[in-house]
């Protein structure tokens, strides 16, 4: 017997629209309100940022201030101070190259082919060394530039990268110690982790920048930048340690028992069995932690660093551009947004990618 299948008539564009947005009076109302808000905001924003905006600095700040829209000429006039801070003008290409090296390093470490311990260490090691060489100079004919002159986006990236570079191994150590079978080690580490986590980052940065020099012998004080990086790395590692520990708890106990039965040593078990699986479990949360700590580098402005937020404050703070604070903050927010949004999108992509392997 033959069955006759009658396909329902394909809904037209209009029908589809009606079904999706105007199914019930309430839905219609909601759609209309949302649409009104969107159109209003989009129009306001576009009008401010593009249609009535001034892009060139030809008229000077006065002509710019009179404009109805945004005054992007403040960025044209001040982008160098925002991106590079107080770095010597002729040498700013080095600061730019250093930023590029950090970005390339981050992009490389996002590619799965680089996800072995050795390769990732190599990428991050070379990237950071390259950055340091370019910024500091003193070799290969590059003039020396001290840390106190570093600033802007380059400083933000440096703090972020070194925080992760120091914080990540520290986090793994802390996580391993917290799950140690020796009660005093696990308990003490637990107190350290929970203690750091209960404090706000600002107070830790403040302690490391301003209070710690009192508590250190003269020869150990070092530059404020490195102390603050240490503090921020400690904070990062306390959070990351809990994430790694969570990942370790997701590895079934049988795995370790099997490794033990094979006669593997502690370090073999950790390095070859436990950590690879734990890191896989912890990857989404880890990316999230990277995102958070990138945003939190901005807090160093409080202990007196000239990173991108402070250089932004300086860019509009002086005399003639005093009115253009919205434009400067929008520019900085956009830079942060590009970095943070792409990182978090990457995190979402990873989560989808890993869900494929779930059974």
């Amino acid at each position, binding site marked *: 017997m033959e069955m006759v299948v009658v396909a329902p008539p394909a809904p037209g564009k209009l029908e589809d629209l009606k079904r*999706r*947005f105007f199914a019930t009076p309430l*839905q219609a109302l*909601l*759609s209309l309100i*949302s*649409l009104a*808000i*969107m159109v209003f905001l989009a129009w306001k924003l576009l009008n401010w940022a593009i249609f009535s905006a001034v892009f060139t600095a030809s008229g000077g700040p006065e002509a710019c201030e009179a404009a109805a829209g945004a005054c992007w000429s403040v960025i044209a006039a001040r982008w160098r101070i925002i991106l590079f801070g107080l770095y010597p003008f002729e040498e700013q290409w080095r600061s730019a190259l250093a930023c590029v090296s950090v970005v390339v390093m981050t992009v490389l470490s996002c590619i799965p082919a680089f996800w072995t311990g050795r390769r990732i260490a190599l990428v991050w090691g070379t990237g950071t060394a390259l950055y340091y060489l370019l910024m500091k100079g003193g070799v290969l004919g590059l003039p020396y530039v001290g840390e106190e002159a570093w600033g802007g986006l380059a400083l933000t990236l440096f703090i972020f990268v070194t925080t992760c570079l120091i914080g990540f191994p520290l986090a793994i150590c802390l996580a391993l110690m917290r799950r140690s079978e*020796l*009660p*005093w*080690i696990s308990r*003490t580490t637990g107190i350290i982790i929970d*203690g750091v986590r*209960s*404090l*706000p*980052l*600002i*107070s830790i940065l*403040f*302690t490391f920048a*301003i*209070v710690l020099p*009192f*508590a*250190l*012998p003269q020869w150990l004080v070092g530059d404020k930048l490195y102390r603050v990086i240490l503090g921020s790395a400690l904070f990062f590692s306390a959070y990351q340690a809990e994430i790694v520990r969570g990942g370790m708890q997701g590895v079934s106990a049988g795995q370790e028992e099997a490794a033990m039965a094979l006669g593997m040593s502690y370090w073999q078990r950790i390095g070859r069995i436990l950590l690879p699986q734990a890191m896989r479990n912890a990857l989404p949360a880890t990316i999230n932690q990277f995102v958070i700590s990138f*945003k*939190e580098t*901005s*807090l160093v*402005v*409080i202990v007196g660093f000239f990173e991108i*937020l402070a250089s932004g*404050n300086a860019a509009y703070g002086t005399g003639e551009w005093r*009115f253009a*604070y*919205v434009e400067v*903050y929008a520019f*900085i*927010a956009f830079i*942060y*947004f590009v970095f*943070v*949004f792409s990182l*978090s999108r990457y995190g979402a992509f990873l989560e989808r990618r890993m869900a494929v392997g779930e059974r």
Partner: protein
Amino acid sequence: MVSLLRNQKVRNALLQVLYVGSLAALVLAGIVIARRNLADQGITSGFDFLYKSTGWDVNFSLLPATANDPYWWFFLIGIINTLFLGTIGLMLATLVGTIVGLARTSSNELAQLLGRTYVDIFRNIPLILQVFFWYALITHLPTPRAAHEAFGMLLTSRGLYIPFPNVGGVALALAILAVIAAIALPVWLGRTSRLSQPFGERSAIQLIGAAAALACAVLILIIGRLPDEPFIDFPALQGLNLRGGLRIPPEFSALAIAIAIYGGSYIAEIVRGGFKAVGKGQMEAALSLGLSPWRVFTLVRLPLALRAMLPILANQYVWLMKATTMGIAVGFTDFFMIVALTINHSGQTLEAIGILMAGFLAINLSLAAIFNRINKAIALKGNQLRG
């Protein structure tokens, strides 16, 4: 000796002693060096300084404060400021987050898009940048002479002036308590009244309770009003200055707005996750029982979602409470800024840092305790736990 080291137990004990001992030695050495360095600067350690007068002022305080007050009083003011800003920020952030989160979970695609755009934009910009932005925006508002006016409120570069009832401090505190009771009473009545009572009767009791508490609040305000003054004090221009009303300083409003917007974007995601965790079958069951959509939402969907999101929400609240320390960026005298100022002015570095740690530990632990209690109260009980 070598054979002793081969013994696992001895090795373990040694390892632990070494670890804890070296950490303790590090901390002790730090304290000893710090005490010596501070003593060289003529600062004696100890907590005696708490009873000395500070000699500086705070720009925001709910309690009376002068430069003659002792340090312990300023620390108390700092903690209260932090809690006050935190509470207002949390409430606003929860409000924003609930609205945006509901928009994201709604069946309307346009509302979803709106919610997602909000979350994507504000979650990806650091909080301190948003604080700076709002602070700059508010301090660039017109001077009092050219203030924006709306609903009796005045928007100026010196802050937001709002009309305020002319009542004494005690009456105000009592009235606030009564308002809190008006919110808490219906919840409590709803929990204690018998489930066998018909639904309409229960909600009537709840309504009466809330109304009675609100009436109490109004009564307290009327009794406690200051004599010979208009009941509600409107801000108005007098000469070059504004008189009357309540002034909300720019520092406070910038922080509260930033925390509300930034925290709201995080809470929106938590709310969305909570609603996503509610099983489809439970909603279908509720609908098939003939409950109206509103009833399904308030009686089934919301309580279940709340249960799923509360633990994450508690973490977020603790985080937001700590975020009040951004106050130092714009000069709001929160707990951390008081500590920083104390270190600057008195040099009692170690003691102040100790107080800072103790204060935040206390705040975090009490928040955690409150949420654990709430969590326990609404968690699944008994044998209804099923996979």
